């Protein structure tokens, strides 16, 4: 009997604590301090504090970096977007200097222009150079840095030099050398970009890298589609003698089967003043690489 009473009391108290928490949260919301800050900034200090569990501490900071990036990408925090991404990755790689994906993932997303990333090629470069110092035999780091210079900065000379550097490391794919030479000779164009991205997609050993390369390829496809639509619009203006007021006009005239959509499925916007095509502001393919746009 006494035992039954104890069990009932236990259940009542436990259920009461759950109900009370729910009531408190419903009434007051979260008052807890959600400051976006890092208590530990120094990798050396963190390493000392972690004793022999530095790899596990690196994993925790890695998870925090992924959550920080994903959280800011999904929900705009207002100010200071992605501001902890570099410090978190720096700490992760200080605790575990061989954490390859932290350098590669970090660099790609640090260099990504807003809203997909902070657009900090300088931080991406610092992180990859740290990786190169920790593992000089990894061709992936100079390769990634070369590609970021190629894709985000359109600095073909610097990009080619990093591709050359990567090509000189044993185990690097054979296509790196010719790509670097072609980059120096021709600069940037869509064909070369597509060729390079297809190679990255084929060689990608991580899902996130495949996703990034696929998105970049879709951006190139969108640029091609927009070019074709612009040519069609120019032809329509020439034949009809006026600018179309909307896509519907072209659909009714039989020029289009429906409202054209970008490779991500978002309808293109028609600029009625100039009769040109633009990406929808909501499209995840924004921003398009400017230099390859026309």
């Amino acid at each position, binding site marked *: 009997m006494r035992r039954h009473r104890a069990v009932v009391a236990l259940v009542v108290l436990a259920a009461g604590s759950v109900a009370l928490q729910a009531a408190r949260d419903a009434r007051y919301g979260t008052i807890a301090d959600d400051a976006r800050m890092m208590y530990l900034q120094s990798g050396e200090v963190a390493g*000392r504090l972690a*004793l*022999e*569990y*530095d*790899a*596990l501490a*690196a*994993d925790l900071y*890695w*998870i925090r970096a*992924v*959550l920080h990036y994903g959280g800011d990408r999904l929900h705009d925090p207002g100010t200071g977007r992605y501001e902890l991404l570099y410090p978190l990755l720096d700490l992760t790689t200080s605790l*575990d200097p*061989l954490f*390859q*994906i932290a350098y590669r*993932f970090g660099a790609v997303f640090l260099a990504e222009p807003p809203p997909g990333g902070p657009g900090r090629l300088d931080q991406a470069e610092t992180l990859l150079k740290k990786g190169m110092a920790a593992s000089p035999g990894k061709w992936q780091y100079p390769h990634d840095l070369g590609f970021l210079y190629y894709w985000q900065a359109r600095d073909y000379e610097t990009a080619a030099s990093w591709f050359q550097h990567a090509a000189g490391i044993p185990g690097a794919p054979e296509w790196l050398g010719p790509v670097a030479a072609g980059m120096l000779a021709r600069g940037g164009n869509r064909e070369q970009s597509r060729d390079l991205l297809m190679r990255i997609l084929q060689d990608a*050993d*991580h*899902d*996130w890298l495949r996703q990034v390369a696929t998105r970049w390829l879709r951006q190139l496809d969108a640029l091609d589609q927009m070019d074709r639509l612009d040519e069609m619009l120019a032809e329509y203006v020439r034949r009809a003698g006026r600018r179309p007021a909307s896509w519907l006009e072209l659909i009714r005239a039989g020029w289009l089967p429906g409202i054209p959509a970008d490779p991500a499925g978002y309808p293109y916007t028609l600029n009625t003043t100039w009769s040109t095509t633009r990406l929808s502001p909501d499209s995840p393919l924004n921003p398009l690489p400017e230099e390859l746009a026309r």
Partner: protein
Amino acid sequence: MYHVALHVFKESVRDKVLYNLVLFAVLLMAVSFLIGQLTAGQDVKIIKDLGLAAISVFGLFIAIFIGIGLVSKEVEKRSIYALLAKPVRRQELVAGKFVGLALTLAINIAIMAAVYFAMLAYYGWTEPETVQRAWEAPAADPRLLKPIVLIYLQLLIVNAIALFFSTFTSPLMAAAFSLGLWVAGHFNADLRAFDTVVDAPAAGALGTALSYILPNFASFDVKSVVVHGQDVPLGFIGMNAAYAALYIGALVIASAMIFARRDFK
């Protein structure tokens, strides 16, 4: 000595020490289930890291919290009188206590390692080949046995330290000293380089001397290296094993000497 060792092992089983194995298995399974969504493809690395850290932490708790009671508990419970009345030498009693806890640790670590490898093998079996290609090393990489062996050797030293303090101080103090030495043992390299940061040659020499006297636990830590698929030479493990044997031998002898001189009247 054999009987004393067996008694220590049986007592640890009675104390439900093996319950930690269930906790270990649940922890590993829960983590592997939860982290998949959070780690951008690093789940196998994190399971490896966490498994090795858990083996080390669970083992450390067993080594310290059972080790500190090996002698002092017998004194507190006054069962030491019955023990000493038997035809067993005090030195044998101390050595038997050490061997008994070493056996408990060995069985615990062996079972945890088996669960760990089973978990990793299952992970490797369920993941598609395209995902596995991104891994720096196979999931159930046999090289992971090396850090586990080194963890065991490290825990044997901790066991000997706890036993040493257990022979002359209270369990609470013995736990504090053992934990303190375990932490200090990870800063060995800093102590050795002390002369480069201080001007006083005497302080530098003292730091260097302490670095050789204190247990060097940092050299037993190869967990992160092996998880990244890099190998650890067998010679390195052999040298560490020899170091552990010498250090443990010295501590057990010191413990036996102190215990032999104690007056329990």
